[in-house]
């Protein structure tokens, strides 16, 4: 689907906008798809010293253009990497505190940033069984999270059917109270805007709008009431450089269909 500008698809917008959140020198734990692509984009443009970790067991990845892996567990993930190690061990780096930011896609999210990738309906007899947590729960439990996902009402729900990967749980201090003292939701990047979480209530908050999008549009595509930053900035549209590099990395639109 093309956005208004027709210069880029919604997926491309998502990739560019989330790439901009990653800073040079950070350590990012990236999932497959838009996160992997956005992290690689950041690494090629403004953050050459970005260290990318994959759940399959890679530290300091440097994925080759046009050679995107089907998951983060194949040899393509390790090409020109600094280190390859066991998947338990790379996940333990999260627990040890080595990772600055976790970066994943999401199927369903709620107002406190909880993610569901397990069940639609009741776990005992779900209407849809989803693929499950993978490392999602571990990443979301142990480090600061960026989530990139399409902004649709059925995906942005008041309360997820099942908390696969914890955000701020019931808001306020509830995350810390269950024993999750590190990490938490940092940003949600969508094709409509950039969202964060209110410092005390932990409710989802619109921080910026993408070009041509209104706050009302964002709310209309969200299944719960959003907080909105006063004086809402508008993001810069994807630059030609960003789009060119993105398409160089994913020429077959494997992740950006």
């Amino acid at each position, binding site marked *: 689907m093309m956005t208004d500008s027709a210069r880029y698809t919604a997926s491309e917008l998502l990739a560019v906008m989330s790439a901009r959140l990653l800073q040079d020198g950070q350590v990012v734990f990236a999932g497959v798809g838009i996160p992997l692509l956005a992290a690689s984009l950041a690494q090629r443009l403004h953050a050459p010293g970005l260290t990318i970790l994959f759940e399959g067991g890679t530290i300091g990845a440097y994925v080759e253009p046009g050679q995107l892996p089907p998951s983060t567990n194949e040899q393509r993930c390790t090409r020109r990497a600094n280190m390859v190690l066991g998947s338990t061990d790379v996940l333990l780096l*999260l627990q040890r505190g080595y990772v600055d930011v976790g970066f994943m896609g999401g199927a369903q999210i709620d107002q406190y940033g909880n993610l569901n990738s397990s069940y639609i309906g009741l776990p005992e007899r779900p209407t849809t069984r989803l693929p499950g947590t993978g490392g999602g729960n571990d990443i979301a*439990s142990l480090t600061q999270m960026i989530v990139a996902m399409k902004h649709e009402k059925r995906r942005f729900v008041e309360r997820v059917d099942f908390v696969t990967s914890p955000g701020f749980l019931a808001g306020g201090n509830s995350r810390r109270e269950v024993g999750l003292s590190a990490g938490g939701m940092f940003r949600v990047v969508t094709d409509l805007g950039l969202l964060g979480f209110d410092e005390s209530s932990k409710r989802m908050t619109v921080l910026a709008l993408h070009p041509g999008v209104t706050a009302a549009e964002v709310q209309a595509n969200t299944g719960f009431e959003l907080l909105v930053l006063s004086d809402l900035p508008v993001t810069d549209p994807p630059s030609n450089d960003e789009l060119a590099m993105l398409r160089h990395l994913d020429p077959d639109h494997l992740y950006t269909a």
Partner: protein
Amino acid sequence: MRIRLRLARPCNQLRGSVTLSYDDLCRRTRERDRSLREKVMSLDEAAALVPDGASIGIGGSTLSRTPLAMVWALIRAGRRDLVCARGISSSEGELLFASGASRHLITSWFSLGIVWGVSRIMRAYTETGRARFEEWSHLAMGLRFRAGAMGLPFLPMRSMLGSDVLTQLPDARVIDCPFTGEKLVLVPALNPDFALIHVQRCDAYGNAQIDGLPFMDLDLALAANRVILTTERIVSNDQIRRRPDQTKIPFLAVDAVIEVPFGCAPHECYGAYEPLFDHLNHYAAALKPDAEQGIRDYLARYFYEPASWTDYLDRIGLAELIDAARRGKSIYDD
């Protein structure tokens, strides 16, 4: 008909993970022949070691170093009620469910991967209650194997707290740390009856070298009560002894060694071949119109009909094997 009958026993009451007492764990290990001896056999002979109902740890992850030849042999041998465990599961899980070899998979993620979408077989079997997908976090799976490898009843961890994943897992416990007072989850050891692991090379005794991503295989090998190794090639013990620091699985944990070139196809084996993308597309397409009929036809053509593993590979096609091997070896190119 046969599958329907089995529904009388709900799949969520299948024997799951049991924490062995230390006496039982040690007794099982003591009874194994851990001596330096040749263990080379055929896929069929290895399949005959595994009884119905056994618990099985499956090596590799997603599309990587999956011990597919051994899964193939177990399905052909008509195994039933295997309780399978793997860090992340993919098409091998679909084939285990659809063949009736397993109705219980313990894993963190079960689907086909970003390119092919959500597994329709996983959905069909779990949503109707015909099979169980027991979900632990990826780290929890890894620590369960690691606890098993370390001879411990559990390991502590800091994720899963506060999530609904944890509420579905009566086998995990939450404690207050006796040192810091912090909340911790204790996950129970997983000591499967068998581990199926594919490696790039090993000797006839089972000393195995693994290139690239090791996933959870080193822990799995030591956690399991028996290890069945498939290998791209068998090398001499002399070659192993020249670089003992490259041995990743010790022979004393291994019970069977089977030389199976392209033993992960259509999945990948690091440095040897990449995934056979065309065949995976073909498989996904075959399941598109009617997933259950599609996978039955696929099982017939690729699992039950071939006379041998080589015949299976031949049905996949030489061109793809050559291409996958070229791509696989390219990981070592500058």
